[in-house]
């Protein structure tokens, strides 16, 4: 009875029953756990990065960031690639492909030189994988010939991509590191090397916090810590920024995108799709909540498409790309004065505090009645008040005032309608 629309989409020539994939990480480390994920509804995976040899890992290896009482805002991890050997992983991949012929088995690989990349490409292709993802982006490798150190170097990216493409018939996705100012450069290099798709972002180099007793970062490993990758919902805005730039880059128009970074809900996933991704990948929220979160991704996206009358997921890919424009091109002809609905106001004064200390002293506070009042002459329409108000719909966008002698040929009501705050 539970509603499910056709969410299928073609990604790099491979039919995917929906766009939801697990990203290469601890959540897809062996056939047994991946089987459970497939049964829960994930369309495919990028198998945890396979190398020539297994890794030597530290303990503990994770930390979380918290704000007020919300844990897992961000997540720091120190795990590298698969702890298993190539041979062991090939066996697992074969098993998966046999048991789940209709699911998509992408496999992430990482070598430390051209020969290793070729060995891995051949072995995984023979194992029966559906696509390859090249890990140019893990920020916590113990070798500088691997991971994000490679991904920051377009020349190496081009070389290794070409080495792989020349030794496989499978579609190849290059996974980018966000630890760089211009992701387009390595992405273009990957395309020149023959990559068919780009996935982004891998984790962001971080020190999550300092332990005040041990005087080192977290997690503490025998009195020390190290810089390593940060992920989770906190990084989503950064991921969306990189995806936007990749989607807008002329030289990358021919490749397909897979979005990664802080996806927890169907809405998060859809945001990546609207920015041009045909595929999305998830890890951190699965580590926190389990594979079952895909149920609400599938169901929530189905309901959304049903409500909007969209029959093919493909029709929504990239719809938002052209609406993100350079700051200098934004319309700066007006300000929107917030409207405070006093019948909803509970008299906490948070809008007043934030406006005075963080904005333009544009709210007057009556300490007798405990009610705020907007001072229109001071208000610049920044909407800080609206973002701190704890009451649903108490402060909403109000009157639109055009700056002296300026107009944009639209009426105020239309402008306000565009704004939806939750």
């Amino acid at each position, binding site marked *: 009875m539970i*509603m499910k629309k056709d969410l299928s989409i073609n990604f790099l020539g491979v039919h995917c029953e929906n766009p939801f994939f697990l990203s290469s990480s601890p959540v897809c480390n062996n056939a047994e756990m991946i089987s459970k994920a497939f049964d829960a509804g994930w369309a495919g995976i990028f198998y945890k990065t396979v190398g020539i040899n297994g890794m030597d890992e530290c303990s503990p290896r994770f930390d979380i960031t918290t704000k007020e009482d919300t844990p897992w805002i961000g997540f720091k991890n120190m795990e590298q690639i698969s702890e298993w050997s190539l041979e062991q992983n090939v066996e697992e991949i074969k098993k998966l492909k046999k048991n789940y012929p209709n699911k998509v088995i992408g496999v992430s690989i990482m070598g430390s030189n051209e020969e290793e990349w070729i060995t891995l490409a051949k072995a995984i292709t023979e194992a029966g994988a559906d696509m390859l993802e090249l890990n140019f982006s893990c920020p916590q490798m113990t070798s500088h010939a691997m991971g994000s150190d490679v991904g920051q170097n377009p020349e190496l990216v081009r070389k290794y991509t070409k080495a792989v493409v020349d030794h496989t018939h499978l579609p190849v996705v290059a996974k980018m590191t966000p630890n760089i100012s211009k992701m387009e450069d390595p992405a273009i290099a990957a395309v020149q090397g023959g990559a068919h798709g780009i996935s982004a972002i891998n984790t962001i180099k971080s020190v999550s916090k300092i332990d005040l007793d041990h005087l080192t970062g977290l997690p503490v490993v025998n009195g020390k810590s190290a810089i390593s990758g940060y992920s989770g919902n906190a990084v989503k805005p950064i991921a969306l920024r990189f995806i936007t730039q990749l989607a807008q880059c002329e030289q990358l128009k021919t490749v397909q995108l897979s979005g990664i970074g802080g996806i927890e809900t169907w809405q998060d996933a859809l945001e990546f799709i609207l920015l041009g991704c045909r595929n999305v990948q998830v890890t951190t929220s699965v580590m926190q909540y389990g594979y079952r979160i895909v149920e609400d991704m599938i169901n929530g996206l189905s309901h959304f498409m049903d409500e909007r009358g969209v029959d093919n997921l493909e029709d929504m890919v990239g719809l938002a790309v052209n609406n993100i424009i350079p700051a200098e091109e934004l319309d700066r002809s007006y300000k929107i004065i917030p409207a405070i609905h006093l019948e909803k106001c509970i008299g906490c004064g948070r809008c007043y505090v934030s406006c005075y200390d963080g904005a333009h002293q544009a709210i007057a506070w009556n300490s007798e009645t405990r009610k705020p009042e907007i001072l229109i002459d001071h208000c610049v329409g920044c909407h800080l008040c609206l973002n701190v108000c704890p009451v649903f719909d108490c402060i909403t966008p109000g009157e639109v005032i055009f700056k002296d002698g300026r107009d944009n040929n639209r009426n105020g009501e239309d402008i306000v309608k565009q704004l939806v705050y939750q």
Partner: protein
Amino acid sequence: MVQKLVVEYEPELIEGFDFRRAMEEASRCLLCEDPPCSKGCPSGTDPGKFIRSIRFRNVNGAAETIRTSNILGASCSLICPQERLCEQECSRCGIDRPIQIGKLQQFAMEYERKLNKTYLSKKDTYAGKRVACIGAGPASLSCAAELAKQGVQVTIFDEHPKPGGMLRYAIPPYRLPDAVIDQDIHQLEKLGVKFRLNDKVTTKELGKMKEEYDNIFVGIGMWQSKMLTIPGADLPGVVTAIEFLSRAREAHGKMPSLGNVVIVGGGDVAMDCAATCKMLGAASIYDIFIETIEGAPAVQKEKEYVFKLGVPLISEFKPVEFIGQSRVERVKFEHMSNGSILEIAADTVILAVGQTMQSEAASWRDSGDIFSGGDMVNGGDTVVRAVKEGKEAAVKMMESFTRR
């Protein structure tokens, strides 16, 4: 600011969570493995799943989960004794206090109503089959919905002018407004269920219906109020709880003056009577029962509510005589063990001492060739249990269709 104690008798709606509050509460949910709350719901409404849907911003999915398993999802969100069902099982009790599951269910059901959504659809598995459900209370409604979803053509018969049974005529509107009952009923109508109201089925008619329909479900509840066999029980001014509550509801709370009220009974119905009397402006109200305060069967939340409204709850006294000339004037009580005597002036006495079946119901139930469920089978329990029994009867009925 002061939190207000709701005292409006007939509110249009009961205020629920907005999106932010719902998300805040859903974020408190621990998202347990094999959620114990879901096991605590007789009808399988699956709070573990619908709260997770809210948490992951899929309110449609939450409402869909509720609707799929509980055709009275909107009503149950308001009147189910969650504190002794799903919320009692909540793992969060091990940390502080349970998730407010009823409030989250209300939030999802309000979303359905505001957006006029339809989550249930009809299959034609048993198209052509015809079933009559007698009684338009929770058990019948639930049975009808399950059958209708599989294409059975269902007609519900009820002697009252509106469907809902005890939901409509016994539960007061400050707990369950008409609009919420209508929302649930509307789902049945969308499934094509037909209602024949103001139509009291007799034993003779039932015989005829057995030939006309492929099967019959009877869920006619327990509408006969138990009486007390003590002197003065037939004095004017002594009324039964169901009679009082349904009269108040039909009159939209505009009743002749109640004067001084004495309520006898310590169950949920007694608490409903006490709060109703308060809202209708009774001069004084005493609720007196034979149990101890903690032993009285009403859920704690309702006892506390009545206490907060300022109604004294007097425990461990049993009524021994209603005293008066042409109508009741005083009630005499005796302590259950220590011999104390209590006499209270009363213009109205409301007896909330339990319900029983109407006489022919038992013979219908036991006749063997029909299905039945709800209060008349379980002896009087929650709405959500009636929903479960209605569903189970529907499943058995459909199995019998398959076998034939």
